[in-house]
């Protein structure tokens, strides 16, 4: 008998149809992955299984856990099941824990809330055991730690410990590794797999990234617009993708673009021995404040027309370096020059240089003022110019920038909320292009996008490289993306560049052990021989 059996599950929230006739099952000890893009309903399928849906949700169909139909239980019965029979792990480890309680108290709570007769000491002893099981041994991570004293990966381990403390029959993991670095991601995935095997626990894993689950899931379920479009055993599903959407997802995940040949080398941005220190808070009243060296003796050159990648995990100094390149912060050593002119002069950015650089950020939702129209948003860089184009010239510049990124002049009079995430990122690129900068910085510019949208934006970048001779620095934690849109790549770790070289060489023959571990940890889609239809 199956552990979890969802049949004909439909869900609407305030008359908006979210799920249509979803049918899926998880057997004991089985790892089932639900994948799809944003809006596919995969997360709400998980929440429906927990019966933790938002207010106004209307549900039909059945969710059988063993012989109990979760849709027919009372709230009190559901509270008995949550945490005891079904555990859940969430996406965002930074916010999933209560910041004002110790990790020990939070893990012990799962036990105490279900077993009132268990004493505090016993619950704490079992919490310590569970934490050790997920890789947080007591000698290094005592129960008295608070969440803010742990890293993202460690916090996710605490969340997992809370979910598995009572050895539930089913564990639901909603994008458990999306917010983590690749090496941490690999460790958390291995942990989840190990726990499922040891306890014979069913694991329902929600993810947008096919590659993450391809070598771990027993079965894959592909969802789109609230419907299951295809499901099957992992290997056979990947070998014979029947639904065009599955094929599209698969292709988009490994999407490659071809860049035009870069022009002969001619230095544009030169970074020499740059050091960036942050002052740490004083530890004593009269002692000298300590320093944290975020960027340590970094040197590299971007050639005109070159597409350079910068990869590294969170906290490696990528963002600090980006701010220094833009002249937003003063460096404590070394020099950064664009065409020979320093990016930072005195106490402020050098505006002559600043107007030759533009940046595209990660978050397509937070990086625009919602009260301005698109024409005003994308002409913001004109403020940097001495004589910005006026009247017909301005209109022409707007049209040209919008057309270049695949939008039309009609979009100029719209507001930002009228656009999807991918379109917003196009607008961000139009804003960067409009003053024809010498250099564009892409700071995790495609990381928040769905795979199919990401593929389109990468195509757009490749096209723009041909049309505008772009020079850019592409900063990302996503190795597969960096591999396809850059000519050369820098690998950064703990504030230092540990390896640099031609992108293909670095990926094929990584020299530094850190690069090797990064590439080994990065999830890749297995390449099966596709069965002919």
């Amino acid at each position, binding site marked *: 008998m199956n552990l979890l059996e969802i049949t004909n599950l439909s869900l609407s929230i305030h008359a908006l149809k979210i799920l249509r006739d979803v049918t899926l099952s998880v057997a004991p000890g089985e790892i089932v992955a639900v994948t799809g893009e944003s809006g596919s309903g995969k997360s709400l399928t998980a929440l429906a299984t*927990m019966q*933790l849906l938002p207010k106004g949700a209307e549900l039909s169909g059945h969710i059988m856990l063993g012989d109990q139909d979760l849709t027919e239980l009372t*709230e*009190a019965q559901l*509270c*008995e*099941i*949550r*945490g*005891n029979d079904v*555990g*859940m792990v*969430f996406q*965002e480890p930074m*916010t*999933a*824990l*209560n*910041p*004002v*309680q110790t990790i020990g108290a939070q893990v012990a*709570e*799962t036990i105490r*809330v*279900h077993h009132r007769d268990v004493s505090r000491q016993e619950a704490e002893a079992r919490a310590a055991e569970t934490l050790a099981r997920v890789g947080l041994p007591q000698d290094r991570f005592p129960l008295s730690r*608070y969440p*803010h*004293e742990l890293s993202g990966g460690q916090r996710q381990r605490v*969340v997992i410990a*809370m*979910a598995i403390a009572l050895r539930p029959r089913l564990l639901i993991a909603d994008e458990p590794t999306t917010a983590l670095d690749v090496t941490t991601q690999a460790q958390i995935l291995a942990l989840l797999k190990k726990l499922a095997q040891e306890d014979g626990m069913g694991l329902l894993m929600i993810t947008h990234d096919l590659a993450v689950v391809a070598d771990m899931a027993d079965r894959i379920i592909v969802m789109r617009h609230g419907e299951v479009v295809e499901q099957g055993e992992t290997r056979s599903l990947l070998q014979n993708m029947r639904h065009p959407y599955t094929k599209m997802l698969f292709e988009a995940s490994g999407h490659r673009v071809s860049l035009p040949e870069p022009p002969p080398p001619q230095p544009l941005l030169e970074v020499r021995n740059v050091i960036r220190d942050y002052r740490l*808070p004083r*530890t004593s*009243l009269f002692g000298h404040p300590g320093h944290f060296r975020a960027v340590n003796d970094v040197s590299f050159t971007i050639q005109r027309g070159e597409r350079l990648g910068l990869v590294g995990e969170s906290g490696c100094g990528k963002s600090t370096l980006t701010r220094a390149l833009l002249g937003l912060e003063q460096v404590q050593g070394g020099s950064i020059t664009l065409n020979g002119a320093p990016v930072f002069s005195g106490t402020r950015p050098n505006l002559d240089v600043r107007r030759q650089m533009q940046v595209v950020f990660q978050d397509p939702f937070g990086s625009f003022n919602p009260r301005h129209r698109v024409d005003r948003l994308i002409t913001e860089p004109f403020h940097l110019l001495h004589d910005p184009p006026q009247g017909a010239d301005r209109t022409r510049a707007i049209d040209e920038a919008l057309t270049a990124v695949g939008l039309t002049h009609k979009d100029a009079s719209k507001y930002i909320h009228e656009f999807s995430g991918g379109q917003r990122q196009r607008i961000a690129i139009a804003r960067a292009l409009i003053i024809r900068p010498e250099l564009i910085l892409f700071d995790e510019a495609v990381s928040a996008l769905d795979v199919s949208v990401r593929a389109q934006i990468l195509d757009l970048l490749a096209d723009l490289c041909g049309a505008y001779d772009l020079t850019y620095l592409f900063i990302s934690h996503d190795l597969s993306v960096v591999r396809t849109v850059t000519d050369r790549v820098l690998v950064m770790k703990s504030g230092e560049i540990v390896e640099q070289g031609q992108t293909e060489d670095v990926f094929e023959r990584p020299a530094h052990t850190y690069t090797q571990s990064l590439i080994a940890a990065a999830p890749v889609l297995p390449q099966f021989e596709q069965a002919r239809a």
Partner: protein
Amino acid sequence: MLRYTIKRLISLFISLAVASIVIFAVIEIAPGDPASFMLGMNAQPETLAALRAELGLDVPKVQRYLTWVGGMLSGDFGTSYTYRTPVMDMISDRLWVSLPLALYALVLSTALAFPAGIYAASRRGQAGDIGVMGATQLGVAVPNFWFAMMLVLIFAINLRWFAAGGFVGWDKGLWAGLHALTLPAIALALPQAAILARVMRSSLLDVLGEDFMRTARAKGLTARQALWRHGLRNALIPVLTIIGLQFSFLLAGSIIIEQVFYLPGLGRLVFQSISARDLIVVESVVMLLVFSVITVNFLVDLAYAAVDPRLRSRT
């Protein structure tokens, strides 16, 4: 935690020192000199000279400042010009009314606001929430002296449960004192409770939307358990801030209520000494209020750290 406390204490002393300098300087730069200001336009030259000597205006400013601060530290606030009594005695008499009244009102307002705010937040959008929010809207809008008059009408004049005003003094016993302060404390507390309840509600609603509340539900906690165990403590920081501000206001800002109930409190003392241009009293009372505000802020800072471990470790 010890390091945090010491740091807050150091900042408390620095604030006090700066405040005393500012207060002293402001009185110094008042037009004319303090003596001619206090006596007004038609002062006799002899009286003026006598007052100057009494105030010690003939010695250098730095020395005068140090004498003033030194005096306050040893409990000597000077002598009131109008009443010819030591300022210390006047203030301490009034403080014995104002401080208990402020504390009483604060306890009442917190006792009203917490349940109301939590109730409203846990029933967001439902009838209970709308009812509580409507009541607090009224509480914020209606001035406290109107509440005071209504309370007098109902409980003093009609029901005769309380006296309409005046203060019996603490020597008649704790109960008699509290009894006399009850109506003014309620009048002061109602608008404060309304504000506090609204802050409590919105702060709690913010917390209820946090990811860790969903985690708590996924562990099997009921909505109510999650709210009490995980929501409340996280929602307290903005509430503590408002409580701190309210206490400072209650201590000195209750002049209208003191008038309505004929209470000999600090607010009336400030009002009377300003009208009488008794700068010595004004200066001392202002310094005292500054001291109490800064002390309350210090206590609020300690309360923050007790609630939130992240503040403790940030040293």
